[in-house]
C-alpha cells in the first residue's frame, strides 16, 4: 500500500497534527499521539488519511484523535477518538466498530507464580473446557428470546442476577456493566438469532483469555489500590466482545445510515463513515441498538469471569474468595458514549466515539468508581500473546485533551496473511512454550495470525500515552497461559 505523504506538524515528541488545511472539508485538525519511530510505521499505510477523513464528520469537536496503537480500519481508524456535539453532530457505527463493546476485564488473585506454574496445564485445560471458545462456539447457557431482551437491557447485571458474579463486580465495570438507553425494539430478528446461542462465549480472532504474572510495578500506591501488590502475583485477563450479535447490529444499522447520509445531505469522503445526526430517529435507533450490544458484551465478560473463578476454584480446591479472585476493572474499547466534557471553559454534551480506544477518567471524576476515586479509573491495555500487558490509570490531562480517552492495545502492524506467511514452517506453540507460555487454541492458523510479529510493541504504545500524560503507567504483566478462540 502506498505511503501516506500528507502534512504533519510536530507539536512535541508525542503529538503530531494534521492541519485542517490538509484537505478541504476537514472541520477540525487531526492529532496523532506517537513517537517519531512509531510515526514511520503509521505513515506506511493510509491511516493518517482516515484520521483526516473523520475530521469531515458534522459536529466534531476539538480534534480527530489517533492513539499510538492506531492502525487502518474501516472508515474510522482503529485507535481513533472523535467527540461530536450532540446538538449538531452525528453518530457513526463505523466509529464504534463491528465488535460493539469489545473490551477487557481483569481479575486479580492472591496466588503467586510459584503456586500456579506447576499446575498451569491443568488450569489451562480446565479453562478451555469451562469457557466456550472458538469459531461458532455456542454457550453453555441457553438464552431464550425473553431472556435475550432482559440481557440486552440489564447487561452484566443479568448475569449477576443468575449467580454469575457479584454486585462488587458491577461496581468495578465501566458504566456498572449496563449502558442506559438500550432499546431491544431496534434489534433485528437476525441480530437476536446470532446473539442468543453465542452468549457466554469467548469467540475467535484476536479474542483471548490469559493467565498473567505481574512483572513490574511502576506506581506501587496506585497498584495497591487496584489490589496489585507483588511481583509474581497472578492476574487473569479476558478479552472479548459482543460476538456475532454486535456485528449484525453494526451491519443492520450501517445500512440504515447509508440512507440517512443522503437524506440529511451529509458529505463523506468514505462510504464506511456512514452516519446520522445524533438527534435524528436513525441516530437514536442506532444508539438504542448499540447499547443492547454493549450490554450483551458486558454480560458475556461477566459470565466468562465467573467460569474463570470456578475453574481456579476447582484446580486449587479453594473458593474464589479464598483465592482473592476479585475484579480489578472492565473497560470497553469499541463504543460511543454520551458524556459531558468541558471545552474552553464551557460544559458540553458530546457523543464520544472510541474505536479501539479506552476511556481514561481521572481521580475524582463522578464516573470513576468509588474505590478508585483517589487514583483514577484503571485502564487495561493488553499486548499480544507473546509479550506483555499494561495496567494504567486515567488522568486529568486525558480529560482536558482527549475527552478522557487513551490507547487500547498493541495495534496490528502486519495483515493476517502476512503474519501467517512470516510464521510459515514455525511452531508457534513450541516457541511460546520455550518462553514459558502455555497455549491452547481451537484454531492453529488463527494462532499464527496473532503472533507477536503481527503487532506493534505495546511497551512503545504505553510509553507514548504515559509521556504525553493521557494515562499513567501502573503495572506490567506477562502471559503464562493463554486460551485463543
Amino acid at each position, binding site marked *: 500500500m502506498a505511503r501516506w505523504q500528507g502534512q504533519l506538524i510536530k507539536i512535541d515528541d508525542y503529538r503530531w497534527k494534521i492541519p485542517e488545511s490538509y484537505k478541504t472539508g476537514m472541520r477540525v485538525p487531526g492529532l496523532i499521539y506517537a513517537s517519531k519511530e512509531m510515526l514511520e510505521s503509521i505513515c506506511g499505510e493510509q491511516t493518517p488519511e482516515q484520521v483526516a477523513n473523520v475530521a469531515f464528520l458534522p459536529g466534531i469537536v476539538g480534534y480527530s484523535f489517533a492513539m499510538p496503537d492506531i492502525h487502518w480500519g474501516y472508515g474510522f481508524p482503529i485507535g481513533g477518538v472523535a467527540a461530536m456535539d450532540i446538538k449538531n453532530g452525528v453518530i457513526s457505527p463505523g466509529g464504534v466498530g463491528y465488535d460493539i463493546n469489545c473490551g477487557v476485564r481483569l481479575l486479580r488473585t492472591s496466588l503467586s507464580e510459584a503456586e500456579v506454574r506447576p499446575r498451569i496445564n491443568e488450569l489451562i485445560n480446565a479453562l478451555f473446557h469451562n469457557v466456550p471458545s472458538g469459531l461458532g462456539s455456542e454457550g453453555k447457557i441457553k438464552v431464550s428470546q425473553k431472556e435475550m431482551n432482559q440481557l440486552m437491557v440489564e447487561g452484566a447485571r443479568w448475569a449477576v442476577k443468575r449467580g454469575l458474579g457479584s454486585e462488587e463486580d458491577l461496581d468495578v465495570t465501566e458504566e456498572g456493566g449496563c449502558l442506559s438507553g438500550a432499546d431491544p425494539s431496534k434489534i433485528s430478528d437476525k441480530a437476536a438469532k446470532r446473539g442468543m446461542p453465542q452468549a457466554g462465549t469467548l469467540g475467535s480472532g484476536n479474542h483471548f483469555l490469559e493467565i498473567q504474572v505481574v512483572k513490574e510495578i511502576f506506581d506501587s500506591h496506585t497498584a495497591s489500590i487496584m489490589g496489585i501488590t507483588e511481583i509474581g502475583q497472578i492476574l487473569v485477563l479476558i478479552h472479548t466482545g459482543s460476538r456475532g450479535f454486535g456485528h449484525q447490529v453494526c451491519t443492520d444499522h450501517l445500512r440504515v445510515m447509508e440512507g440517512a447520509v443522503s437524506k440529511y445531505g451529509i458529505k463523506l469522503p468514505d462510504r*464506511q463513515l456512514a452516519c446520522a445526526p445524533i438527534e435524528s430517529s436513525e441516530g437514536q435507533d442506532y444508539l438504542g441498538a448499540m447499547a443492547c450490544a454493549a450490554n450483551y458484551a458486558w454480560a458475556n465478560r461477566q459470565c466468562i469471569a465467573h467460569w474463570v473463578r470456578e475453574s481456579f476454584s476447582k484446580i486449587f480446591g479453594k473458593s474464589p474468595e479464598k483465592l482473592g479472585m476479585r475484579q480489578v476493572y472492565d473497560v470497553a474499547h469499541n463504543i460511543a458514549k454520551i458524556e459531558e466534557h468541558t471545552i474552553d471553559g464551557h460544559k458540553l454534551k458530546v457523543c464520544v466515539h472510541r474505536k479501539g480506544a479506552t476511556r481514561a477518567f481521572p481521580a475524582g471524576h463522578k464516573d470513576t468508581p468509588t474505590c478508585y476515586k483517589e487514583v483514577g479509573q484503571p485502564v487495561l491495555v493488553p499486548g499480544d500473546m507473546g509479550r506483555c500487558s499494561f495496567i494504567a490509570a486515567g488522568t486529568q490531562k486525558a480529560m482536558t485533551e482527549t475527552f478522557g480517552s487513551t490507547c487500547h492495545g498493541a495495534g496490528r502492524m502486519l495483515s493476517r496473511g502476512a503474519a501467517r506467511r512470516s510464521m510459515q514452517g514455525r511452531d508457534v506453540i513450541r516457541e511460546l512454550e520455550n518462553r514459558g507460555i502455555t497455549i491452547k487454541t481451537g484454531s492453529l492458523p488463527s494462532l499464527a495470525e496473532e503472533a507477536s510479529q503481527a503487532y506493534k510493541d505495546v511497551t512503545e504504545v504505553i510509553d507514548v500515552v504515559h509521556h504525553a500524560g493521557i494515562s499513567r503507567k501502573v503495572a506490567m504483566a506477562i502471559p503464562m497461559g493463554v486460551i485463543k478462540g
Partner: protein
Amino acid sequence: MLFLYNGFRGMKKAFEVIDHTADVGIIAYGTDIEELFSNAALALFSLITEPESVERKFHLDLEVSSEDIDSLLIEWLNELIYLFDVKHILFNHFDIKSLTHNGLKATCYGEDFDPMKHKIKAGVKAATYHMLKLDKSDDGYKAQVILDI
C-alpha cells in the same frame, strides 16, 4: 495477492484473496454480473473453509434486496455470513436466478458444517463497505470487498 482460485468454471480466474491490515479482502471476477455475485460468494466460503470439501447435499432459495448494486453485493455476502453463523451452513455453488440493481434471487447449494469434515480457516463476521469497488470493463465485472474476521 495470496492465491488465485479457478473456481468451477474452467480456467478463468474466479477470485483472488487480498491482504488488509485489520482483516482480509476479496476481488471477484465475472463475465457477467451474475457470475460476479456467484464468484464473490465462492470467495467468501473459500476464506471460511476449503470449498472442495463441501458437498451439494441440499439447496436453499435466497432473496436479497437493497438500494443499489454495491450494497446489494454487501447484503448478499452478509446474508450468507448470517446463514453460516446461525445455521452453520456451508455453500459452494450459487445459481443466480435473477439480479437487478435492487434485488437478487439465488439458489445456493451446500451442506451443514461438520467439524470432522470441514476445516475452518477463519470466522468471517461481516462484509464491509470499506474500499468497496464494483467495476465493469471490456473483460467483464470486477468487485473488491473487505471482510471483517
